[in-house]
């Protein structure tokens, strides 16, 4: 009876005995038990990470392509602007060339190029282009300026330019040779490819606009001054050799 009673004593007291577990026990269990829902979440997280990894490089690529397009457009704009400068510069160069001797012609070209900080390639291209432009369009430009603005200086240009040619033909053989060489150069200018031709046309149309805007100031430009001086020389009808205009 006593043996059984000691068993009963322990059974009664310990059968439903509870003890408070430590706080971190559930965390330990949670790490080891399977979580299907968590695995699903983990899958979706991985999916989104994959999407990010795929789309971020694609986005960067598109951005780069857009940037390249922008830079290409900027380059085109630069290319369109540079001929304007060269056109203006070569106008001045032609003035100098027409006034100087044949021997000094190449030197003047070089010095003008140095002054305007043009590269040799650009200068040669611009020279070729602008010679043709000036030979073909210079008179037209002057005419349009003269008719549109109706200024004396612009009308004089036309007449004076013709006079300059006449003077050069009549008075000096050297100038005649010079003109022949100029015309040869013009003839020697080869037709440009189709793409460049389009660009040139655009450039011409653009180059006319600013000239019209600056027509009032034409008399104050070097060309205007030079032509005025030539006119003075013709009015005096002196046999004075052609005036060498200083470069500056």
């Amino acid at each position, binding site marked *: 009876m006593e043996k059984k009673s000691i068993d009963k004593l322990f059974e009664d007291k310990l059968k439903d*005995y509870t003890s408070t577990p430590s706080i971190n026990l*559930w965390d330990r269990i949670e790490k080891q*038990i399977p979580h299907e829902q968590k695995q699903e979440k983990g899958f979706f997280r991985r999916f989104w990470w994959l999407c990010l990894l795929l789309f971020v490089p694609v986005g960067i690529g598109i951005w780069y392509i857009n940037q390249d397009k922008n830079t290409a457009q900027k380059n085109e704009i630069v290319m369109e602007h540079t001929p304007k400068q060269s056109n203006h510069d070569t106008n001045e160069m032609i003035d100098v060339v027409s006034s100087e001797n044949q021997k000094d012609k190449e030197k003047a070209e070089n010095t003008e190029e140095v002054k305007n900080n043009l590269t040799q390639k650009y200068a040669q291209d611009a020279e070729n282009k602008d010679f043709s432009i000036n030979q073909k369009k210079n008179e037209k430009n002057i005419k349009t300026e003269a008719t549109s603005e109706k200024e004396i200086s612009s009308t004089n240009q036309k007449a004076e330019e013709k006079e300059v040619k006449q003077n050069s033909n009549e008075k000096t053989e050297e100038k005649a040779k010079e003109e022949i060489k100029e015309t040869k150069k013009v003839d020697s200018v080869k037709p440009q490819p189709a793409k460049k031709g389009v660009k040139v046309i655009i450039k011409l149309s653009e180059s006319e606009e600013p000239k019209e805007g600056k027509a009032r100031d034409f008399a104050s430009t070097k060309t205007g001054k030079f032509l005025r001086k030539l006119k003075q020389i013709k009015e005096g009808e002196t046999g004075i050799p052609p005036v060498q205009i200083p470069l500056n």
Partner: protein
Amino acid sequence: MSKKITEEEVILRCQKSDPLAQKYLYEKYAGKFLGICKRYFANLHEAEDVMVMSFVKIFEKITQFRGEGSFEGWMKRLIVNECLTQIRKKQILFVDAETQHNLVDNIETAEEILNAEDLLTCVQRLPDGYRTVFNLYAIEGYSHQEIADMLGISEGTSKSQLSRARNLLQTYVNELLGTDSVSMTN
């Protein structure tokens, strides 16, 4: 999780690995199961480790529960089996011992004075072999044959282990009650 949730619903949700249901089940039974583990292991950390492993097994094997019998009983069996697995790993020697009968004459006084913690201390003081057999026989209700099968020992060894455990417990209880002179030997 609502308080009115039934045990069947908890089981179903645990079978679908619902984390909320799993935590609910843990919070409901953790104290009771730790009490069981503490009866088998004197060291608290050891008991807690076994309880963690037991809960992991419960959540892993909960899909195998078909609703036959009590769910708590099913879980208790898993806990006890896990305790025994760990005890076996410790390679406890179940040696036949001479049967001594230390009787407690003032059992009613012990019941009144001693609480569960005191009695748990007495059980934890027992050698591993004695403690295991006493737990299985006196508290869990297994027969000597079952205990012999579970522990891989003979039925006679189980009986002698239980007898020795009782004698020691009587001694420990008498110590707690301050009645050392009551012990008798046959």
